[in-house]
């Protein structure tokens, strides 16, 4: 690690200051783009697993109220860790936010329990769905309402709403969730999160292991939820293509750092994103020799 970073301590410090400034500018950019104060903002957090493994090295991002924000990157870039840092699920995996802060609706939330955060309206849909296999689909949905105190009628009402968004769940309501298809499980997981009446959903890799048409279906529902219910989404995805079609703003994470961010449209038009994330390039494929140039550029960005 030390070798790669290079430069003396002074230079590194200067770089860090620059990066922090850049982060602040980014944050303002995203909020301004939505025209509102961000509902969730992450300020320069660092996450360490098991006291030694540094996974996030200063990530900052903003999720505007009522927007869909994409968090993109390859395997191991730190997308899931970022989401778990927000939802406070890190502690159960011996991870820790060691620097920076996370604010949700203007309050710091990095010391809360996961259930406190759910109560405040921010819930995570975990990667790989994680339905309760031995519970029926309906029971799964009802567990989502665990933190609610507003009575049976309101919960029944929301159950109906979830069934309206996901008609397939209504058909399968009495089957054991473990025996439903992958798409139905993803719907079940999103529906379960909706039952907590969230204002913000942290959606981790909804496209994982699903057929393209199902992915499309699920993203359509996410968009509908965003439009009709005003739920804000922070969406971690590897499928850059579809994520940038539905998101309004995007951040690209590499090796635990935000290397690029911007309006979804701008990111889609960016040459580097096109080449390295969308798999299309301009007129002719570049030779691999030029990858070096990109790496240099990447380091500069980082």
């Amino acid at each position, binding site marked *: 690690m030390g070798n790669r970073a290079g430069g003396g301590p002074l230079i590194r410090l200067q770089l860090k200051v620059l990066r922090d400034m850049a982060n602040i500018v980014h944050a303002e950019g995203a909020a301004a783009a939505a025209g509102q104060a961000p509902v969730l903002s992450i300020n320069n957090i660092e996450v360490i697993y098991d006291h030694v493994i540094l996974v996030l090295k200063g990530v900052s991002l903003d999720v505007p109220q009522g927007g869909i924000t994409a968090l993109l990157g390859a395997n191991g870039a730190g997308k899931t860790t970022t989401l778990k840092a927000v*939802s406070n*699920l890190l502690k*159960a*995996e*011996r991870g820790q936010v060691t620097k920076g802060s996370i604010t949700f609706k203007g309050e710091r939330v990095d010391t809360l*329990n*996961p*259930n406190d*955060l*759910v*109560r405040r309206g921010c*819930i*995570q*849909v*975990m990667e790989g769905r*994680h*339905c*309760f*296999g*031995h*519970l029926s689909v309906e*029971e*799964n949905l*009802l*567990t*989502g309402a*665990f*933190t609610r105190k507003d009575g049976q009628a309101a919960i029944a009402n929301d159950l109906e709403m979830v069934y309206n968004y996901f008609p397939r769940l209504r058909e399968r309501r009495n089957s*054991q969730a*473990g*025996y439903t*298809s992958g798409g139905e499980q993803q719907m079940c997981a999103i529906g*379960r*999160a909706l039952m*907590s009446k969230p204002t913000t959903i942290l959606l981790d890799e909804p496209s994982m292991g699903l057929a393209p048409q199902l992915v499309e279906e699920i993203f359509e529902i996410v968009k509908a939820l965003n439009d009709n219910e005003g739920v804000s989404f922070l969406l971690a995805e590897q499928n850059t293509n579809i994520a940038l079609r539905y998101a309004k703003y995007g951040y690209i994470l590499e090796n635990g750092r935000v290397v690029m961010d911007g309006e979804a449209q701008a990111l889609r038009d960016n040459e580097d994103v096109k080449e390295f994330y969308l798999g299309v390039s301009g007129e002719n494929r570049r030779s691999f020799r030029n990858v070096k140039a990109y790496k240099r550029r990447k380091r500069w960005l980082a």
Partner: protein
Amino acid sequence: MDILYNIFIDPFVQMGNAPDFLLQVLWSGFVGGTLYSLIALGFVLIFKASGVFNFAQGIMVVFAALTLVGLYNLGLPAWLALIATIGVMALLAIGVERVVLRKLVNQPDIILFMATIGLTYFLIGLGESIFGGEPKKMITEELGLPSGSTSFEPFGGLVIIEHLDVAAVVMAIVLVTGLAIFFNKTRIGRALRAVADDHQAALSVGISLNQIWAIVWFAAGIVALATGIMWGAKSDVSFALQIVALKALPVLIIGGFTSIPGAIIGGLIIGFGEKLFEIYWGSLLGSGVEGWFAYVIALIFLLFRPQGLFGEKIIERI
């Protein structure tokens, strides 16, 4: 030939000749079975919610019974002692959650298992230093449990049914029904099953593991208290009782670690099985069959149906 006759014919001839005695044996097997079921139930509760085999369940039975008798001997009226004991079990549950489970969240199962062994010795020491090591009499009458017996005369013979045994069976049925309703119909019960399925996902939807664990250990504590009262009334309240609790292990292997109906059926199988075997086949193998019968049955189950009769199938989609 003699051997075959003794194994396959003679016992049934005996049963046919003395049907009243057979009834008596079946009844005592049934009572023993319900008590085994009760102990197994305590294990199942905790295993379902936290995936831990709670080695301390046996000592919790003893500890609950000792506390009850000890508080009564201090001069509390029986009903107050009972309520206070329930309170002590609640405190124990909260304490275990705070001091042991919370610190060990997401550690490998074996570490949690070791922690429950540690808890066992802690409770033995605590119980002995507070209440002393000598056996005590359970306060059966003071708690309003019936004594005496009723005799029937079916088939011209004699069957004696002790009222205490009837009370034990009724209590077991009430507890099990109560727990089943709690698990399947209530919000907390649903959360308990959710935690049993997937800890992480339960955390992510806002279920507080700490709260759930405390509740589960409390429920197991109540079951332990009921078991302790019943076993204590049949023998004495002493630390030897925890050996009986180990019988729950074969019960669980037969019934499945995650199933409440399994715990009940498994308990009954062991209860009936060991009594019948002891009385009618025991003489062939020398006596003392009751001691190991359950473990042999469990071994056979491990060979042919390791998840038990009602164990949760591992759901695998293909």
